[in-house]
């Protein structure tokens, strides 16, 4: 491909700045020639991205005027780079670029130009310059303290040591992707590398989980924008995920839901029901147990999402989704072969019943054989 309409990424991550020279976001935008209408638009788009009602835009505008540029250190551990790929594809480039320009991505070893010693120095410099205020973003799980650290290292440092060292001075930790949030694929049975999630290790700092495999791009930037805007943690669910994005089940926001309620299902991937866009429950859709924003935020700039494309939801934003039974088996269907179990146990039961019955009959027959007729006279004599 000859051209790309993505903004050039040179100059990012920015070199560590002096902490005293921090302009507010409002100042940065005005310096970039953004008018007040442009700012209003930016706030409307940001509200939309943060899954907040449009009426919140003025409040966002107010806080953004004075918001400071937070430093972000992005650590990648046992991961596939899918989360970073997803992030860099968050459509709405203007907004995303502004967010990314506004946050100072000081360390991201996949995206940054520096490598080796220089890269690690950038991380340490950013940590020192922003002690207690920077945000740590983690993608990927990591071998736990009990596991062999050799399964994943960066610059000769084990993931565990790097995480614990970096988190020390952080304001908060954002675990991006199901691997960082819940262990994900590396933790899948039998978990050979002893992988654990970030929240299993980081106990003294707030951890925000942005799960998904990968997460919806707009959800990643949305959570970062929310932290940037309000400077505090969003409301979280029982898995420490922001409620704004993970508050509702896919099933409850699915446009195919009416078909589920009516009992109209696709039975295979190319039958009449599939062509008519009926419910995918019978094809293994895990929508009822999956909490994510796919149904409303969608993917690829709002083009579509798995269910709209005719693929059942795999439940990728839930803990242990990889071990949660067959992807293409209905949620209510148990693993294994329950029919065979039933048949075998039934046969054994029938054998037991047969034996018990035969024994019972023998007893009756024996009793009949032992039966003696007694006359009334004999009985009277006995009394």
């Amino acid at each position, binding site marked *: 491909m000859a051209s790309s309409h993505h903004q050039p990424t040179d100059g990012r991550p920015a070199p560590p700045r002096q902490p005293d020279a921090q302009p507010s976001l409002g100042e940065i935008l005005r310096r970039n020639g*953004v008018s007040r*209408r442009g700012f209003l*638009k930016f706030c*409307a*788009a940001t509200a939309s991205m943060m899954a907040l009602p*449009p009426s919140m835009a003025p409040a966002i505008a107010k806080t953004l005027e004075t918001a400071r540029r937070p430093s972000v250190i992005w650590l990648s551990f046992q991961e596939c780079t899918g989360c970073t790929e997803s992030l860099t594809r968050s459509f709405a480039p*203007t907004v995303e670029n502004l967010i990314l320009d506004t946050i100072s991505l000081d360390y991201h070893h996949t995206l940054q130009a520096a490598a080796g010693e220089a890269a690690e120095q950038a991380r340490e410099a950013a940590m020192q310059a922003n002690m207690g205020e920077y945000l740590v973003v983690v993608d990927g799980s990591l071998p736990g303290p009990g596991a062999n650290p050799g399964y994943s290292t960066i610059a000769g440092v084990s993931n565990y040591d790097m995480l614990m060292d970096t988190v020390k001075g952080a304001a908060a930790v954002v675990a991006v992707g199901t691997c960082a949030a819940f262990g994900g694929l590396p933790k899948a049975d039998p978990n050979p590398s002893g992988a654990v999630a970030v929240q299993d290790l980081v106990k003294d700092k707030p951890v925000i989980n942005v799960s998904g495999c990968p997460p919806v791009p707009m959800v990643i930037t949305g959570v970062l924008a929310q932290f940037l805007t309000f400077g505090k943690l969003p409301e979280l669910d029982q898995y420490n995920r922001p409620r704004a994005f993970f508050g509702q089940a896919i099933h409850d926001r699915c*446009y195919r839901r009416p078909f589920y309620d009516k009992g109209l299902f696709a039975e295979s991937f190319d039958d009449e029901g599939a062509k*008519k866009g009926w419910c995918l429950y019978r094809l293994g859709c895990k929508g009822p147990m999956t909490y994510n924003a796919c149904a*409303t935020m969608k993917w690829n700039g709002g083009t579509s999402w798995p269910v709209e494309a005719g693929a059942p939801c795999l439940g990728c934003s839930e803990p242990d989704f990889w071990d949660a039974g067959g992807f293409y088996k209905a949620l209510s269907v148990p693993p294994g072969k329950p029919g065979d179990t039933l048949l075998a146990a039934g046969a054994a039961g029938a054998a037991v019943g047969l034996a018990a019955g035969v024994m019972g009959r023998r007893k009756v027959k024996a009793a009949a054989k032992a039966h003696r007729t007694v006359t009334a006279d004999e009985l009277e004599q006995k009394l």
Partner: protein
Amino acid sequence: MTSLGDIPIKVEGGTSATDFGNALPVLSEVRHALARLIETGEPTQIDLGAMPFGPGDEERLMALLGNGEVNATIDALGPTRIRETAFGGVWVVEYLNADEQRVALHLEIDEVPQMLRAQRDDFTDALAAIDARLAPVSSNEPADGQRTD
């Protein structure tokens, strides 16, 4: 480079937009917002990006809303297209980035959409700018090409 639209797609089964029914509920929300605007003067913004639209739902909603008398484009941080619907006071506001990709799609139920209004903070800046323009005129006429600021 071929665009997505150039790839021929044969749609089978003929699913009509009416099969996915999220357009009418949104229209009903618009109706309530309009009633609120009449009663209390309170404007409403509806983020269509937060709606669980199925294929065709958005087109169906737009067809239901129709076209009104006003069309406007704002050029700030990329274009923003504003269109009055067939229903007075109901506006479609589409925020686009510099690459013409949609950033957000809102319905606004208001006399004038927020984006079209001149911003109050700009008035003072504008006043200063006009004063700056007027100042040299009162003293001496600037020559061509001479900068005044």
